[in-house]
């Protein structure tokens, strides 16, 4: 009895000691993790020091090049355990430390860049400039099967049929009260007019709506302050409704433009075409909507008010001033609701890709077309020099800044002056198709004089400064709102198009970095033949002076970008698709349900994939069969996708994320044995994840 007691006591005390010391809880892998965190912290501290230095030196208006500074930085670097090359100038050391994201650490921002002629969106980490992902949007993407597989091929369906490509320009993150809410990213298809919605949880394209009565959906999709509507204007004017008039009639006003209002459901993000406003046949360029006091208004630049149809490079540059179109969307909404628009017959598609289900394509045949004459007070023209491009509203909503592309200054309109002038007859110059044209001076706040050559696009830091990209003189200029003086300028390499500050077009910018999206690359990287990647440059906005930090190549031609703080998105990002939520009509949720179902010559293979095999083991079909492989990835583990590829497939291979079902259509044309396999390295026995199809002769 006594012995048993002693034993019990001994066991219990041993356990208590174990737990008490935390020995058994402090696992070795956790220890390792905490060590890593420590190292990162040191690097971060060092980064803060570097930023401080930039700020300090910047305020002294000189470069950081004193030996003392190099020494100081070196010391700190060495403390952090990073060995540096002593011969590097200190500016580069600082830039390197500010853009260095240590292995295993995260970037501060997601940066979504349009792909331009790639038709996609690419996702970068900033400040490192690392590419994380290409999100397929308007173009086929054989890498993962987008547009080839049965689930997404109808995403590219339009009234012109299946369109495999587009030109994506302007990404816009959804806004609530003028601030980024991190729910969706919208982007335009320029060529075959469309707008896409990308879900910022799955980072996948979830809806594409076609814009009818439009050509060149360039000034799109610009959001109102609470993402009530997306605005889409027409770059090319065409006969509306479409007809085969003589091209020369363009100058006679036979060509028109439209401003489309696409509503966004505040819960689901569903896009609907509310209606379109018919506007004079100029070429509308970029837009931005108001904030705060200017909430009800959107502003669109236009060029070619000359309505030239040939040699626009000279013929559209004759007028000293083109127009900014000020548009009261709240007023237009009321007119649409009051039935003042006429219904016209047209054709457009809306394709929706619900999570883990095939795309649903809907065809619409009616739209509402509103003539501004029937809805007075919704549109005004503000004369603006000269072939303006960017149309940017400052965070307060008061200033509307035009990129006066061919002008030698930056015209800035005042919203409050516009409000006073719009109904004052003395301020009116003329009326075009029911749209009053106001006198230039009546709405002008100021001209930023001699900023640069070819000012294109402006973003804001929320601290009272604007930053304008200048294509021709290849630089970024910083100027002060209110005093309109230029305070800083930095070169870009080369010929910057748009620029981007996180939230720089919203009511609340995060002005830490500025990204330049350049059009010409030339000698920036190792030469790789005639076709080059476009370059981007990252600048620090930390001090009074902008500092070049990083230069990196991009995908396609980014026309515009949106920077989103990582904290807004990273915790919501999708890791797996839950198998128990998989409502795909052809899902196979366990191996025992894998089967082959035949209906005449159509064969549906309900297939599962899990490390490291497919079920069924073998598949037998006949010559002439149309075979659909519906492959469900049974994994529920983060980052264990499987691929599916079959020999002779005229579609691409597909990638199937954990819990997802994807379908590949394959025609059994010739008798024989056809292998299929997993095309995404999934496991130690990935190479063995290979099986056979038998195609029997007739």
């Amino acid at each position, binding site marked *: 009895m006594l012995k*048993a*007691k002693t034993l*019990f*006591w001994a066991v*219990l005390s041993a*356990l*208590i000691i*174990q*737990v008490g010391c935390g*020995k*058994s*809880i402090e*696992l*070795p*892998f*956790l220890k390792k*993790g905490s060590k890593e965190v420590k190292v990162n912290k040191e690097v971060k501290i060092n980064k803060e020091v570097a930023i401080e230095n930039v700020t300090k030196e910047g305020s002294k208006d000189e470069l950081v090049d004193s030996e003392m500074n190099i020494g100081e930085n070196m010391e700190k670097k060495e403390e952090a355990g990073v060995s540096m090359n002593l011969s590097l100038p200190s500016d580069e050391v600082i830039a390197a430390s500010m853009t260095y994201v240590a292995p295993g650490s995260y970037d501060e921002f997601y940066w979504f860049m349009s792909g331009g002629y790639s038709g996609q969106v690419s996702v970068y980490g900033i400040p490192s400039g690392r590419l994380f992902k290409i999100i397929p949007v308007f173009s086929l993407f054989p890498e993962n099967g987008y547009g080839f597989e049965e689930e997404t091929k109808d995403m590219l369906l339009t009234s012109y049929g299946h369109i495999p490509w587009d030109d994506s320009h302007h990404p816009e993150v959804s806004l609530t009260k003028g601030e980024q809410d991190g729910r969706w990213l919208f982007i335009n298809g320029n060529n075959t007019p469309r707008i896409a919605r990308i879900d910022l949880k799955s980072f996948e394209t979830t809806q594409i709506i076609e814009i009818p009565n439009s050509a060149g959906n360039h000034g799109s999709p610009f959001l109102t302050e609470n993402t009530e509507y997306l605005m889409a204007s027409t770059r090319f004017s065409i006969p509306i409704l479409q007809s085969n008039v003589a091209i020369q009639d363009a100058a006679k006003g036979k060509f028109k433009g439209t401003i489309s209002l696409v509503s966004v459901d505040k819960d689901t993000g569903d896009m609907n075409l509310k209606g379109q406003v018919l506007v004079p046949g100029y070429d509308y360029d970029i837009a931005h909507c108001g904030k705060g006091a200017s909430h009800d208004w959107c502003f669109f630049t236009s060029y070619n008010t000359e309505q030239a149809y040939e040699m626009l490079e000279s013929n559209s540059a004759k007028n000293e001033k083109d127009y900014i179109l000020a548009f009261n969307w709240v007023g237009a909404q009321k007119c649409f609701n009051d039935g003042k628009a006429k219904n016209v017959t047209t054709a457009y598609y809306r394709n929706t890709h619900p999570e883990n289900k095939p795309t649903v394509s809907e065809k619409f045949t009616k739209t509402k077309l509103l003539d501004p004459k029937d809805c007075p007070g919704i549109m005004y023209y503000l004369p603006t020099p000269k072939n303006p491009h960017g149309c940017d509203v400052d965070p307060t909503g008061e200033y509307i800044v035009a990129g006066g592309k061919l002008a030698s200054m930056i015209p800035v309109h005042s919203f409050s002056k516009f409000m006073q002038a719009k109904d004052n007859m003395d301020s009116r110059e003329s009326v075009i198709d029911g749209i009053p044209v106001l006198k230039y001076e009546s709405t002008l706040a100021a001209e930023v004089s001699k900023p640069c050559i070819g000012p294109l696009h402006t973003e804001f830091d929320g601290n009272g400064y604007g930053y304008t990209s200048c294509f021709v003189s290849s630089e970024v200029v910083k100027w002060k709102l209110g005093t309109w003086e230029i305070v800083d300028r930095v070169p870009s390499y080369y010929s910057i198009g748009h620029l981007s500050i996180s939230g720089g077009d919203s009511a609340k910018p995060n002005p830490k970095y500025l990204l330049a999206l350049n059009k010409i690359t030339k000698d920036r990287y190792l030469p790789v033949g005639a076709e080059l990647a476009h370059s981007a440059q990252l600048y620090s906005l930390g001090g009074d002076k902008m500092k070049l930090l990083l230069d990196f190549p991009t995908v396609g031609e980014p026309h515009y970008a949106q920077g989103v703080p990582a904290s807004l998105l990273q915790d919501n990002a999708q890791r*797996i698709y839950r198998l128990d939520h998989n409502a795909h009509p052809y899902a196979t949720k366990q191996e025992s349900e894998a089967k082959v179902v035949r209906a005449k010559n159509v064969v549906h293979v309900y297939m599962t994939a*899990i*490390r490291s095999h497919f079920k069924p083991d073998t598949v037998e079909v006949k010559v002439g069969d149309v075979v659909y492989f519906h492959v469900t990835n049974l*994994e*529920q*583990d983060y980052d264990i996708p499987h691929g599916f590829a079959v020999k002779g497939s005229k579609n691409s291979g597909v990638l199937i994320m954990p819990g997802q079902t994807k379908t590949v259509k394959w025609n059994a044309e010739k008798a024989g044995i056809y292998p299929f396999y997993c095309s995404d390295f999934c*496991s*130690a*026995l990935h190479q*063995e994840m290979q099986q056979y199809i038998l195609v029997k002769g007739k």
Partner: protein
Amino acid sequence: MRVLKFNHVLVGLSIIFMFGAYFFPIWQIRLAAPQYPEGLGMEIWLNKIVGVGEFDLQNINLLNHYIGMATINEHNISELQYMPYMVFALMFFSFIILCIDRSFALNLLFKGLLAIGLVGVFDFWYWEYSYGHNLNPKASIKIPGMTYQPPFLGCENLLNIVACSYPGIGFILIGLAGFCIFIAVFKQKIVEILKSTAEKELEEIVE
């Protein structure tokens, strides 16, 4: 002899501790591997085995099938069926002690608890042993001489995986219950001895 008043409190406490054991895992096993920096884990409760993350158990089984380990499925582990009843029986018996107020019953409970505890610990070790040793001969990865018994207590390297095993709060609660009973039995014994000595002395004086 009756149970001391103080020991009534201890028995009551042990009932509460044992009741608490239903709400916490008895034992925990954590796994970490280079490609699982966030770790995988499973918890053994009185009546179930669950993953720490929702899909951890499925993923542990997926990894284990390559080396031929059996699938962990709580329905195949009979201990999980009767463990809740055994603890309930102990609680019930403790309650009886409070009612009948007899010290021999307290002794009995202590012995029972000790026996069940020791058998339980051995059973767990044996389950780990067979889980790590009974490998499917058709396994794709076979390393001569290698078995995969998880450690009973502490951490061990098994191929690319660091496996750690340690008791959970449920185990500690049951331990505390046992400790209460142990103190009660001990105190009861001392009082009994003192009492009998005193009685003897009294008898001597009387004589």
